[in-house]
């Protein structure tokens, strides 16, 4: 009797454990669990600026007229071809046929018109209205042609239409996209357990090549320590932006993981309030630039990951000019300049730091560096909410550290009320020319000039370009190494087995 019970017990135990473990084993081949640090506030990329939204839905759930790939190239997406008029003011898009939204609704030119008009409307909640500001009219010509007219030639227009904020939505489902995103992409939205994960499934009616992955889960893990533990234990298969660079070496020496260090569009800067005393004085800004030791900040805050920058431009970009030598690390010079500016004994100021570790850790290091030349900084840690309100909206700050992750955003320096409040008509003129120039060589020259102006004026402390630290299971292929747009494009991802 006892032996029978024992046998049944063993059977139960085995089958029970098999049930518990089998689920995960089978799913591994066509399923990916991706870890991310910030939870998106909702899932409509056309109604919010959070990078996290695009990191879930870009290219997976939603598609735009064009698409940006990991090499920052513009590819056709919902528009399979286009014609640009010679004056650069008219774009004629030829749309793909036979495309359906996830709820079965057909995709056609009316959806493009709807999406673009929705973005440019008075009450639009689109966070990047500037992308569409040149548009004067959007017209459908039949079901498969859309004609977009611009008021000025915009060199970046096709790239702009590839942003997450420009994806095409269906008028019937647009208002509920925040919680139930309906797009045309290869993945459908399955479920969102708030605070925990977002689940994507397969779109059986996808117009293009079906991805190797059938399902995906985005697991939200804000805590760097938890991220480390989850990756190690295999609870997540990949972290596109691993938040704990100190553990990179550990994962690099572990044969079951791939570590890929790539670039992002994130210029990490010590933002300076250019309209606030004493930072309105060029000498003071130059002094700060000399006091900074960029490599020490990279080593201490990012454990060596990151490239020093001398201006607001990404080093991996073809038009980049290396201006890191404009104000080299020289504390003695810094003190001299401060004395010249009227602060022989330095001065006190505040440093407001948002949550990311590049800011919190970088801030402590910068405070120590500036202390050496007599500038005493009071560190004020803030949450994103407060940062947005105090620093970004009310410009109530002296110094802060933040990473600007939108691609090609040097244009923010033309906005006089943008939070660091830099006002230079000479710079604005350069950017205006740039906006109407399409010739690549001339564009590069203008971009170079713009970079030089910002570097010379030491508008902000230009620290480093944020690196993309991607760590994933060694059997996973196809994840992006670089991040030219905020995205986790899963369409090209597959498992090796």
């Amino acid at each position, binding site marked *: 009797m006892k032996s029978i019970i024992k046998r049944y017990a063993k059977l139960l135990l085995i089958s029970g454990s098999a049930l518990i473990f089998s689920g995960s084993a089978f799913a591994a081949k066509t399923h990916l669990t991706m870890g991310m640090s910030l939870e998106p506030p909702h899932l409509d990329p056309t109604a919010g600026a959070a990078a996290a939204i695009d990191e879930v839905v870009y290219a997976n759930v939603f598609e735009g007229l064009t698409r940006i790939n990991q090499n920052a190239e513009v590819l056709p997406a919902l528009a399979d071809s286009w014609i640009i008029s010679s004056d650069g003011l008219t774009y004629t898009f030829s749309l793909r046929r036979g495309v359906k939204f996830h709820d079965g609704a057909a995709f056609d030119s009316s959806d493009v018109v709807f999406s673009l008009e929705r973005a440019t409307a008075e009450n639009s909640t689109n966070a990047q209205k500037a992308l569409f500001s040149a548009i004067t009219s959007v017209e459908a010509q039949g079901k498969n042609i859309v004609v977009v007219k611009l008021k000025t030639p915009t060199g970046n227009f096709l790239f702009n239409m590839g942003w997450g904020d420009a994806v095409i939505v269906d008028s019937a489902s647009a208002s509920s996209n925040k919680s139930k995103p309906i797009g045309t992409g290869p993945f459908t939205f399955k479920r969102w357990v*708030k605070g925990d994960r977002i689940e994507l499934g397969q779109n059986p009616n996808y117009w293009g090549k079906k991805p190797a992955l059938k399902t995906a889960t985005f697991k939200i893990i804000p*805590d760097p320590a938890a991220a480390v533990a989850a990756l190690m234990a295999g609870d997540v298969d990949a972290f596109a932006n691993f938040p704990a660079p100190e553990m990179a070496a550990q994962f690099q020496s572990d044969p079951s993981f791939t570590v890929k260090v790539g670039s992002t569009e994130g210029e990490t800067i010590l933002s300076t309030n250019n309209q606030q005393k004493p930072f309105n004085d060029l000498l003071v800004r130059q002094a700060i630039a000399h006091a900074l030791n960029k490599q020490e900040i990279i080593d201490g805050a990012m454990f060596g990951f990151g490239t020093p920058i001398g201006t607001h431009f990404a080093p991996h970009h073809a038009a980049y000019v290396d201006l890191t030598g404009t104000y080299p690390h020289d504390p003695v010079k810094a003190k001299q300049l401060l004395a010249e500016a009227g602060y022989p004994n330095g001065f006190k100021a505040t440093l407001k730091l948002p*949550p990311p570790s590049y800011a919190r850790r970088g801030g402590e290091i910068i405070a120590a560096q500036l202390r050496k030349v007599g500038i005493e900084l009071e560190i004020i840690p803030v949450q994103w909410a407060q940062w947005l309100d105090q620093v970004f909206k009310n410009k109530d700050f002296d110094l802060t550290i933040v990473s600007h992750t939108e691609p090609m955003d040097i244009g923010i320096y033309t906005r006089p009320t943008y939070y660091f409040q830099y006002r230079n008509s000479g710079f604005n003129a350069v950017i205006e020319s740039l906006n109407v120039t399409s010739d690549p060589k001339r564009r590069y020259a203008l971009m170079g000039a713009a970079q030089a102006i910002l570097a010379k004026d030491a508008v902000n402390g230009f620290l480093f370009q944020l690196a993309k630290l991607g760590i994933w299971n060694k059997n996973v292929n196809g994840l992006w190494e670089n991040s030219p747009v905020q995205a986790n494009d899963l369409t090209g991802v597959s498992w090796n087995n």
Partner: protein
Amino acid sequence: MTTFLAKRLFALLITLLVASLIIFLLLEILPGDPASIILGVGAQEDTLAALRTEMGLDLSAPERYFRWIFGILQGDFGRSYTYDTPVSELILERLSLSLPLALLAISLSTLLAIPFGVFAAANHKRFADTGIMGFAQLGVAVPNFWFAILLILFFSVKLGWFSAGGFAGWEMGLGAALKSLVLPAVALALPQAAILARVTRSAVLETVREDFVRTARAKGLSRNAALWRHAVRNALIPVVTILGLQLSFLLAGTIIIENVFYLPGLGRLLFQAIAQRDLVVVKNIVILLAATVVTINFLVDMFYAALDPRLRGGTHE
């Protein structure tokens, strides 16, 4: 008895009212514009204004307060800014983790504490007593989040027996779901167990010396029978009181532990909501938590008074 009950009920209501007022006052001065948070760094002023009207931020403060209270009484906890979902839905979802976790932690700590406490009392001044009390002293001194970190390091990373955190979800099966709660429950339970064991031991020791126990022994009851039938039963009174008070500490502990193990529970929701300035979520969770603690303390008082008629006079120490 009924006047006592009525008085205490009235007191309960007043407490809740005051709590709600203070919560509302404190959180309405929160500097911060929810619209900016949602729309983010690049948003423009007109879109911000549109969102603000959408969220009803243009009503007066007293109006907002009364709407809030009447809403709660009808079960409407408002709508979260950041998640655009009814808060009641969020709370229920999170409770499906926090409640089992809390129950697990309390059960574990009680199951550990009471036998150990009684055993220690029974072996008063002998080695078992000293040993158990020594461990209890240690348990009380260990911060629960540090204990949690050590647990993860040992049982998850080194041994791989448990997941490092996260919640498998109830649909993955009872086994998988409970497995993800083991380490968190242990991290929560042990410090509580330490306190509880000490209290149990003192309470039992105190009761053992009471006359009625001596009478029981004189009547011929064995030492153990006297211990269990009389001492422990009466010792339960302060123990239950402490259990009720423990709820406060459990709340605080849950917030930290849910963060260490990244569990999608009520505690972490609160913490995240505060960071996101989601006033609606914060207000409603805080009032819910406060109401729970106050109500449970009230129930404990009732239980205490029911057991000990001497306490119904008006004071209850």
